[in-house]
């Protein structure tokens, strides 16, 4: 009897109403750019203006038919995938080491992992530029991928370390007690169970690279990544192609995010065979 009355009262609670209003405001604030970008990308006008004078697909067409835009897109995808693979290849063993092994300076290493997040990208970029120009890596897509791996690594390691800390080590011991080698135990038990963290880490690594501008400006030379091309485009000609590209990017990242959530869910609730 007491329960429903308490509920009804809770709903009228002013603090609750305030919280909802605040949440709504934050949501609106976050969504506003989308509300502007999407209509402009379909603009019939020839320069950036909101609201658009009319609607057309001309800016999407222009993007699609311009080999420079397409090249930049492919390069960014390439760099993003390579960054993801590299960051996981380095990050997974590193996270295992940080959570499992006992060695000197472990604490210091774990602390310094987040350094690339703290150091301003421009400083990092100059440093990497100096190094890479000696190595002849400027203008090469894999040069950018290596630099992006440095940026993505903190995210990957932080997410994986959190995942591995939550993992019950007894599960791995149990597997080994039942005849699994160390490697088998990790492959059959640990990795499937920390898979949600691995998917999150992969996603973060990819978008860290895919949306990165500062490092790309220093390292890409003539071979632009997508953010660099977008930046150049805005600097030189103010026309809605950028809006169209942005809309496509948002769509692409959203799909990627949904997929990674899907994977995480699938990893959480495996289907009985």
């Amino acid at each position, binding site marked *: 009897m007491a329960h429903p009355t308490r509920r009804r009262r809770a709903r009228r609670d002013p603090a609750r109403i305030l919280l909802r209003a605040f949440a709504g405001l934050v949501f609106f604030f976050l969504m506003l750019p989308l509300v502007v970008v999407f209509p402009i990308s379909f603009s019939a006008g020839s320069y950036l203006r909101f609201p658009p004078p009319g609607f057309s697909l001309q800016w999407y067409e222009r993007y699609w038919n311009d080999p420079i835009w397409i090249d930049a897109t492919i390069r960014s995808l390439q760099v993003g995938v390579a960054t993801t693979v590299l960051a996981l290849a380095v990050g997974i063993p590193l996270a295992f080491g940080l959570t499992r092994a006992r060695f000197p300076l472990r604490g210091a290493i774990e602390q310094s992992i987040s350094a690339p997040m703290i150091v301003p990208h421009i400083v990092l970029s100059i440093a990497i530029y100096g190094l890479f120009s000696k190595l002849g890596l400027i203008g090469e897509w894999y040069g950018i991928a290596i630099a992006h791996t440095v940026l993505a690594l903190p995210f990957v390691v932080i997410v994986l370390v959190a995942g591995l800390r939550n993992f019950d080590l*007894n*599960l791995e*011991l*149990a*597997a080994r*007690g*039942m005849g*699994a080698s160390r490697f088998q135990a990790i492959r059959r038990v640990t990795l499937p169970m920390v898979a949600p963290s691995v998917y999150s880490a992969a996603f973060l690594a990819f978008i860290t690279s895919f949306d990165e501008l500062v490092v790309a400006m220093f390292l890409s030379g003539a071979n632009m990544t997508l953010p660099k091309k977008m930046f150049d485009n805005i600097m030189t000609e103010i026309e809605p192609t950028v809006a169209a590209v942005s809309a496509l990017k948002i769509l692409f990242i959203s799909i990627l995010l949904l997929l990674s959530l899907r994977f995480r869910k699938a990893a959480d609730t*495996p289907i009985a*065979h």
Partner: protein
Amino acid sequence: MASNSDKTSGDLSVTGIHKRYGQVRALADVSLTVAAGEFLTILGPSGSGKTTLLKVVAGFETPDEGDVRVGGRDVTDLDPAQRNIGMVFQNYALFPHLTVERNVAFPLEMRRVPTAEIRTRVAEALALVELTGFEHRLPRQLSGGQQQRVALARAIVFRPTLLLLDEPFGALDRKLRESMQLEVRRLQQRLGLTTLFITHDQEEALVMSDRIAVMDSGRLEQVGRPRDIYEAPQSPLVADFVGESNILSGTVEAAEGAAPAVRLEGGTLIRVAADGAVPAPGARVRVLLRPERLGDAGDDPGAENRIPGTVVESIYLGLSDKYRLRIAGGIELLARMGASRTARRYAEGDAITVGFHAADARIIEVR
């Protein structure tokens, strides 16, 4: 799998095991043998080293000194995977991402048993723990007791030489715990599995074990049958840890007749059990007196000892009454008296004379 031809259990012998973690001594010269088919319990408080011992046997820890032999084979330097030991973990350690069937199949898959055989053996193991029909559930869809059974099935499906149980009943409620204890014991006897069981619950140890090894501060205090551990503890620590106890300090007096006598610190003279070596007069000793062996002196004319005292506290426990008494010299005694219809009940402040037999007062320490 219950047939005799399948009996693969072997004996376990642990010799001179030492293990330190930095400054902390976890195991100090532990030696122990468990006969083939025997159920031995390591009983000890938390931090006594019992889990470390289990890990050393399982192969998850390497001892600093000493060796471990299972079924006559020295396994001290073997990887856990090669020891063929089944283990049930405290929290069961079921793989949450695998179904019951896949969990139980895991050790067989690791041994590359053919798929068809895996299927029959998993079915057999699940039938043994009465979980047929739960094959396709995930661990989290099971109750605590069912999870426990899966863990058990998984630990025995590969016919291990030795079964290790690490406080497996801790998470269960009392009723379920008691029925699982009996069930595990029956299964163990039926399969003739050599079993090393770890617990801090003395009642559990008494119920389940062929023998009990009491452990404290990394040492084995006493190893013996449950009855010996309870009735003839060899140290105050064992007496105190297993069951309730009164441990009284006193001095041995010159024996008159057969029964030796001890003068308690408060001046009371009591007759104590004569078995074992009775120390010479003048020796300082400690005497164990189990609360349930103290009775109303009026009900027991045969009791050699009669001690007057006052009830300090009276607690009703249903099955019995528990009294805290004060005797000469301010010494406090715990007494448990049966709740039979004829039993007299005492209230706080009442005078009482408790009686007990000399055979129930045992010298457990000479100082």
